[in-house]
Each structure stands twice: as structure tokens, then as C-alpha cells.
């Protein structure tokens, strides 16, 4: 029997404060991004992004209250229904959406606001996945269960790609961390990371050099890491197999980047490898963003004193490139503080997740942490030139109702579950 608990005591206030700090800081920077020293606008004016964001922030209070006062069992019991609903909505969006910059992922609500269902699909996928993996007898290390779990995570991004929102679809890759925590053999994420490294190497170096490097690595492995008695014929064949597959992958990547990717996507990768190849053309965003960030120096130019982010030089400066404004106006210190806040938040969520008695809550907690981390990885990486330009928002800081709402819901469902952690579902 669940007894009534006081949500004010149950909720994890540390996380709430970290969340509030990030949202508030984001709002300040959105204002700075649209601020113009010669013609100051009022921060509360809803004609501008800062004012609109304030509206979004206020509306999240309502969302949070609803989440906290709904029975915590709802999230578990209705997980599959939510999931089914969002799949239907995602498909419907392809047909209902109005096209914005080539993507069909926004549903218009009235004349001023639009909603992006793709943003919300992560939450419901996380719930459904947690429900499935916490079911008695389900084990991710069993092939059949791994396939079902994989499909649950695979279907939404496929639909999202049909909406031409490749960036949002990529974020579903984050779930690999959850699978790993729940017992997926470590070889898979390790393989994933190895392939990612190989992928990057192919981009930076001619493919024959990479293959030659692979051969050298295999040779070294054979003579240095394997003991004499391990150098059997069987192991030689295995090692040869690894070499052949890796080489095939190298050629596959080359083929993919030159023949399958669209020219503008190729450019993005090329610019990542060598931003100076076209610093003011395809690399314009990256160059401007890096100029803005590096001009911030150690302590930054001061709030509202940035020049780079004025005059609309940095594109999408209040949404995907909000970190530029942080870097320029708050400098190295400000940027690192933001990263520290995120690290603290991730650390807090993971630790809370481990404390859960219910498997459902733990898995969901890992989903939250992984999704937040993936956005952080790609978004900040892109502004500092370590990742290709992929249009996904920075959680809590970026301008936009859909992204703010979805991250808030994502996080607060976990906090609600956590508040009831002493009760096993």
C-alpha cells in the first residue's frame, strides 16, 4: 500500500536547483543573443525570443506541477500506450506538418506557436523501453529481447528521418548507454566506439593509410600483446578476419561519404575535418562560432557586450548555437561552469538512478542521463568544432518551447519516480 508522501520532501532539490540554474542562465543568454546596444528591446517583450522563452519557462511550472501530482504509477502502466500514441503522432506529422526549412516535423498550433513531436518522442520511448526492460524475465543479453528493445528504439528515429529531421533522429543513439548498463555485452558499445574512431580516421586520412595503419596495428598486436603460445593458427585467422572486416568498413565509409551523402552533408563533414578548407563558405557557421567563442577569452566580454553574436553573424544563435553567446560573453570561466553544471546534473541523475529499488525507475533514470548527455556531446561539440553541424538543441539553455518542454518533462518524470523510490512498483 502506498501511503501519501509530501512531494516537497520527496523531490530531489539538488537536481531541481541545477535545472533552474541552467534554464535561467539560458534565458539570460537568449536575451543577449538578440540584444542590440543601439536599440535595446525589453527583455519581457514577447515579440522577441527572450520574451517568448519566458512564456515557455512560465508554462513549464504548470507542466511540472501536473507531472508531480499525477500518480507515479501512471508512467509505468501507461508507458506502452504513450509510446503507441507518439508513434501515431509522428506518422501523422509527416502529413499534417507545414514545411519549415525543408523539414516536415512541426505541427502548427494557432498562428504563432508550433510543436515538434519528434522532441517529445524521446520521453515516451524512454518510458516504454524502461517498462519493457523491467518486465519479469526480460534480459537484454538474450538475443530475442535485445531485438525487441532495439526495435523500440529504432522505429521512432526512422519516422523522424522521414520528416527530414536527421539531427533529432540521431539522438536515439543515446540509448546504447542504457542497454550497456542493463547488461548488453560490453563488446557492442566498445565496437561502436571503435568504429566511430575508425570513421573519424577515414575522414582525416586517405583510406590506404588507414588500412596500412590497421595492418601495422594487427602486427603489433600479434607480436607484442599475444604470448607465444597464443599465436595459434586459429587466432591468426581470427585476427585476419578482424582486419578484413575493419578494412571493408574503411572502404564502406569512403563510399558512403562520397556517394551516399548529399553534397551539403559531405561539406559539413569536410568542414569538420578541415574548417579552413572553406572557412567562409560551408564552414561559415563553424568559423563564426569559433571566432565568437575564442574571442571571449578567459573571463568573457561581459554580459550583453558580445559583438560576434550581434548583427546575426552566428546563425541560429538563440537555438542551436546558444553556447556561442555563453562562450563570448562569459568566457572560459562561464563556459566551463555550464559544463560543470551539466556534469553535476548527469552525476546526480546516475547516482539517483542507482538508488532506485524499482528496475523501471532505474532504467528510466539512465535514459534521462543518456539523452541529456548525447545532446550536450553533439551541441557543444559542434560549436567548438569537434562535431559536425547537427541541428539539435542544448538542453535547458536553447531557445524553443518544444525542446524546453520535452527536457523538462523528461527530467521531472524521473524526479517524480525518484520521490517514490522507497516503493517498489
Amino acid at each position, binding site marked *: 500500500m502506498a501511503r501519501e508522501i509530501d512531494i516537497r520532501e520527496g523531490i530531489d532539490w539538488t537536481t531541481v536547483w541545477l535545472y533552474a540554474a541552467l534554464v535561467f542562465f539560458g534565458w539570460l543568454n537568449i536575451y543577449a543573443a538578440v540584444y*542590440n*546596444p*543601439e*536599440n535595446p528591446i525589453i527583455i519581457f517583450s514577447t515579440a522577441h525570443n527572450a520574451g517568448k522563452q519566458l512564456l515557455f519557462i512560465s508554462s513549464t511550472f504548470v507542466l511540472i506541477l501536473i507531472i508531480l501530482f499525477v500518480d507515479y504509477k501512471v508512467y509505468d502502466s501507461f508507458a506502452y500506450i504513450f509510446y503507441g500514441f507518439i508513434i501515431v503522432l509522428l506518422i501523422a506529422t509527416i502529413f499534417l506538418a507545414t*514545411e*519549415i*526549412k*525543408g523539414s516536415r516535423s512541426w505541427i502548427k498550433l494557432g498562428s504563432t506557436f508550433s510543436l515538434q513531436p519528434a522532441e517529445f518522442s524521446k520521453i515516451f520511448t524512454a518510458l516504454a523501453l524502461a517498462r519493457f526492460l523491467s518486465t519479469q524475465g526480460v534480459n537484454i543479453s538474450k538475443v530475442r529481447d535485445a531485438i525487441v528493445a532495439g526495435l523500440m528504439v529504432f522505429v521512432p528515429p526512422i519516422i523522424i528521418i522521414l520528416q527530414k529531421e536527421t539531427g533529432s533522429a540521431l539522438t536515439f543513439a543515446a540509448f546504447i*548507454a542504457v542497454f*550497456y*548498463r*542493463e*547488461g548488453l555485452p*560490453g563488446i557492442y558499445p566498445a565496437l561502436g566506439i571503435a568504429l566511430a574512431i575508425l570513421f573519424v580516421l577515414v575522414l582525416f586520412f586517405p583510406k590506404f593509410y588507414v588500412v596500412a595503419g590497421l595492418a601495422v596495428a594487427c602486427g603489433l598486436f600479434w607480436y607484442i600483446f599475444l604470448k607465444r603460445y597464443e599465436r595459434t593458427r586459429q587466432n591468426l585467422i581470427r585476427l585476419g578476419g578482424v582486419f578484413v572486416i575493419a578494412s571493408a568498413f574503411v572502404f564502406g565509409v569512403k563510399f558512403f561519404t562520397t556517394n551516399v551523402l*548529399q*553534397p*551539403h552533408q559531405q*561539406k559539413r563533414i569536410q568542414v569538420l575535418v578541415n574548417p579552413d578548407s572553406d572557412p*567562409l563558405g*560551408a564552414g*561559415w557557421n563553424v568559423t*563564426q562560432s*569559433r*571566432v*565568437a*567563442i*575564442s*574571442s*571571449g*577569452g*578567459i573571463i568573457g566580454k561581459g554580459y550583453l*557586450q558580445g*559583438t*560576434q553574436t*550581434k*548583427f*546575426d*553573424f552566428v546563425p541560429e544563435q538563440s537555438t542551436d548555437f546558444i553556447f556561442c553567446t555563453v*562562450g*563570448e560573453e562569459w*568566457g*572560459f570561466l562561464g*563556459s*566551463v561552469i555550464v*559544463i560543470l553544471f*551539466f*556534469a553535476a546534473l*548527469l*552525476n546526480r541523475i*546516475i547516482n539517483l538512478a*542507482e538508488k532506485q529499488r524499482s528496475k523501471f525507475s532505474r532504467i528510466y533514470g*539512465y535514459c534521462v*542521463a543518456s539523452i541529456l*548527455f548525447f545532446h*550536450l*556531446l553533439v551541441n*557543444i*561539440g559542434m560549436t*567548438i568544432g*569537434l562535431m559536425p553541424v547537427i541541428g539539435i538543441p542544448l538542453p535547458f539553455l536553447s531557445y524553443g518551447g518544444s525542446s524546453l518542454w520535452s527536457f523538462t518533462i523528461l527530467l521531472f518524470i524521473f524526479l517524480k519516480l525518484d520521490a517514490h523510490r522507497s516503493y517498489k512498483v
Partner: protein
Amino acid sequence: MFQDRKQIILSFFFLVCTIYALRLFYLQVIDDTYHTIGSTGALKKEVQIPLRGQIYDRNGKLLVANVDVYDMYVTPYKVKQMDTTTFCRLFNITRSYFDSTMTIAKSYSRNRATLFLRQLSKEDYARVADAMVSFPGFTFELSFFRTYPARTMANALGYIGEISKKAHEAQEVEYYRSGDYIGITGLEKQYEMELRGRRGVKFTMMNVHGENKGSYSEGEYDTLAVIGKNLFTTVDVDVQQLADSLFQGKTGCAVAIEPRTGEILAMGSYPYYDPNMLSGKQFSKYFKELYKNPDKPLNDRVATGFFRPGSTFKLVQSLVGLQLGSINPETFFACGNAPVKCHRHPSGDLHNAVRFSCNPYFYHVFKKTMGATSETNPFKAAPIMLSKWHNMVEKFGYGQKLGIDLPSESSGLLPNVKYYDKRYGSQQWKFSNIYSLSIGEGEISVNMLKMANLAATIANRGYWVTPHLVRGIGQNGKGVLPEHRQVHRTDIETRHFEAIIGGMQDAVERGTVGGGAGIVEGITICGKTGTSQNKKGKDNSIFIAFAPRYNPKIAIAVMVQNAGFGGSVAAPIATLMIEKYLKRKIERTAIKERMLNLSIRTVEAMAAGGAAKPVPLLTPESTSKSTPAAPTKPKKETEKPVKTTFIKPKQENLNKTK
């Protein structure tokens, strides 16, 4: 289970955060590459639009050129309190235009320049330049608009206009800004990439107040604007302008091709309108009027129309019949004994049938072709032979696009077995359902380009070259685009052609083209008339021809809507154009006068009644200094062509490149 993995996941998270922090340390504290820009101010990108390429005819006469104008831009945040009334009076705009444009500009961007007013002439610019000191935030940029000195070929040349919102958003790499000009139709669209040139980009550093602080990296990254490439077309402007004048008061089209090369010598769609009407500020004034006109002058009747070929199609029937062996040149069919009517003329062999355009003859030709199989059941024989027939006729380019270098071309329709199966049911139809095809009526539909191409194919005795309008690109026009030189062979052997060509010569000299209206002294013209039925109103008058008979230089197709019999109007016009092209002058002045004065109203125009206004003539605007006479009198050859020098972008506007 697996609790230890928590540490691995967390460590990975922290590792990435550390790498990012180190990267930030490198960018913000160690690396000073960007500090200089960052401390002085921001980087601004200015785009310089080069002049668009010009378009010439085959003899180097200018068809499309550019005129310098100034565009005014507004940067909303720089605009101070100002005397709006004076401003509006200065530019002769209304207060509501000012307010609405200002609102649009603000909503687009407060910090970026938005187009406010287009195409101020040089004189206007000089007049307002001094007064602009009191209106900060408004700037001028040199721009241009298109002018058409030859005043012809409006539909084929096409026009340019502001890029549509949809096209602007669909760009993968942003090249066009909102409000930029882009080719909308015709050659302007087809050769947009070549004509537009390459934009120059100039980077300047700005301080926080938006003041210019010099060029970035000493102009290392600036690129020079490159002028658009010129197009050298295959058109002969003299023949073209003759067609323009001959089509005065008529609706239809004319297209002439050089058979050996596929080069288009003339291509006019009528009613005529002056292409200058759709240039610059005059666009909005005239476009609607042209669009609403019942005769649809904006439709390109040459490449996109749908017409029935009428009797001209009998030539194809003859050739296919000869090739399949269902007839030979001596085959005799009496005029009569067929469901198609004919006019009084002597019966005879293929030569005479072509000469007199005998309907029953070709009914029997097609009937024999459709029965030329061992299958005796007519419901089974018809599909077998129709598919054979279809394969052969298709090789002439029917039912498909020919591949002309224009953005829109109609395929037309060449019915096949599937088409009739769908219509009547499988094996529910036979020859008697499809006999209209024998004389080019019924389901078949074509455009006049295909008919001119047929004339070219016969002139070449069996092959055609993809028709095209452009034969050279670049400042001097050297170098031919390879895809234009594609040769298409038909399945008809060369030996079958002479029989019908003889008939065609006699058709012009003593056949369907009556009264010697097609005879040009010294030139053997081979032609075929066509009279294609209309659902309502008089028939369309069609004539296709090539000349001279041996070593042909020109193949032509002319159609005049609702003009009746093919020999009466289309043939004189076509032969006059041939005369002009081959002799460079017109000796048959009486026929020319008769055609100039002939006026034929279309059914559509008559149906619209009094509401149908003739296509407007261009009234001179302040921007166009000299207005040559209306096209009824084509310009004399002695007249000097309009200034052909390229207007180069001003050097001081461009930054040096490394």
C-alpha cells in the same frame, strides 16, 4: 547486476566533459588566431552580385542585355526618427507602402539590410543622393534589370524575377538571398547556373557599433564577383522578327530548325508580346494582363502546346507503311470507299496521295499496316500491329520529350496498346476503333516542335538531332554543349524517303498549297499541309516543310489557330520565313502584304467577346530611353545593334584577392 558499469558510464561522461573543457581552454586562452577579430569587432559578410550573362542570336545580335539601376535597402536598427512624409514624397511612394515594407524588414531582421525599393534609375539616384544624409539606415546597391533590344522570343527567352519563398527555402547551400533575382522561365531558367555568374564575397570587420574597421585578413578570403556567362543561341533574329510581324493579329506558332544540326533558327509563340514588358518594374503592370488574356500569350505553344498533327502526320504513316512493306510507292488506292471524306482530286499512287493529301488513301495505308500479320482475328491483329507501328513512330520523337534546352516541354500523346486496352478493354478494339490515327486525328497529340522535327527528319532522310537553342556559352561562345549533338535514328531506311519527298515538292508547287503561294523562285520547297480539327471553331492551319530539296538548310513547322485550311495561311507564312532565311530578303511582297494584313480571331477571343482586349503594347517608361517601333516593322539590318560591351562591376567595389 552490472552495478560496476555505472562507473564506466559516468567516467565516459566526465571524459567528454573534460575534453570539451580542454578544447575551450585551448580556444579561449591559448590560441590567439581569432582574438584579433574578436577584440576589434565582428566579421561581416557582404555579397556582390555580378552582372547576368547576355544572350545573343546566331549572328551575334543582342537579344538580352542589362541596364544599370539602384536598389535601396533598409537596415531597421539604424533608422532614426525621420520625416516620413518627405521621404515618401522623395521616392514617390505611399505611406502605407512605407509602413508595410518597414514592418516586413523588421520582422526579417533588425540588423540585416532588407530590400526596400527596387530599380531606381541613375537619374533618380542622382536626384535623391544628397537628401539621403537625413535618412540613416537606407543604403543603395548597384543592380540591373533585363532589357530585350530585339524585342522578340519572349517565351523562349523567359524572364527573371524574385526567387519564390519555396525555392529560397529549398536551397541546400544558401546562395540566393530572399528578394534575389533568379530565372523563372525559358532560357533564363534553363541556363540559370551559367547566366548568373559567381557571386563575390567581401568580409569586413565591424565594431560593436557596426562601423567598418577594414577588410578581414587583408582580403585573403574575399572572392571577386565573376560576370555571368553569355549565351549564344542558334536563333536567326531576322527570320524570327519576320515571323513576329507575319503573325500580327493571329494566334499560333512557328518553329524552324536547321536539320543537320538540330539548331533552332526561329521559335515564336503568338500572340506576340514584347519581352520588355516582363522586365523590372513593369512586370507587375503587364503580367496580370498577359495572364488573363484569353489567347494565353504566356503559353509557349511551340514546346508545350497540345495539338493534333492533322494531315502532316500522313507522312509518318507513309514511311511506316513503306518500311513495314504494307505499301510501296506504286500502291494504288482509289479516293473513296472509306469512312474519311476527301475533296475532289485525281486518285493515284503514293506520290499523288501526298500531293493532294488524300484522306482515303492513308486510311487504306493504315488499314493495311494494321492487318499486315498472319493473325486473322482483327481484335488480335490490331494490338500486334499497333505495337509494331508504335515502336516505329516513337523513334520520330512522338509521345516523348525531344530534349530541347527549355525548362518545360510537353511529351504529347502517342497512343499504344495499353492505352486502347484501358479505354476499350483488352481485345475489345480493332482497326475500326483507331482509324482516325491514319490522318493524324483522334487520340494523338503533339506540339509544333515535334512537327518541325518531323520535317527535319525527312530532310535528313531518316535521322534527327535533338533540337536546341543554345550553341555556345561563355564570353566568346566557343565550345558546343555535347548533349545537344545527340543523333536519333529512326527505323526507316533512307531509300523510302524519296517517294514522299517528291510528293511533298508537288504539294507545294501544284498540290494542296494553292495558287503558287508556296513557290519561291530558285528554292525547291518540299512541304505538307495539315488541317487539324478543333472541337469548336474553325480548323487549325498547319504547314510543315523543308528546303532546299537536296542538301536542306531549314525545316519548319507553322500553325495558325482557327485559320482553316493548311495551304491558305500557314504555308505562305512558312515559305516567307524560308525565303528570308535562304535569300536574306523577301521578293514575294504581295504575299507578305496579304499575310501582314490578315487578322484571325480565335474562338477563345470571340467567346470572351468584348472583354478580350488585344495583347497590350509596351508604353515607354522613364527607364527605357529609346523605344524602337513596334514589331510590325522589324529593325533594318543597317541599324547598329544596341551597345554590346559588358558592364563590368566597379573595381573599387571589389576587394583584391590573393
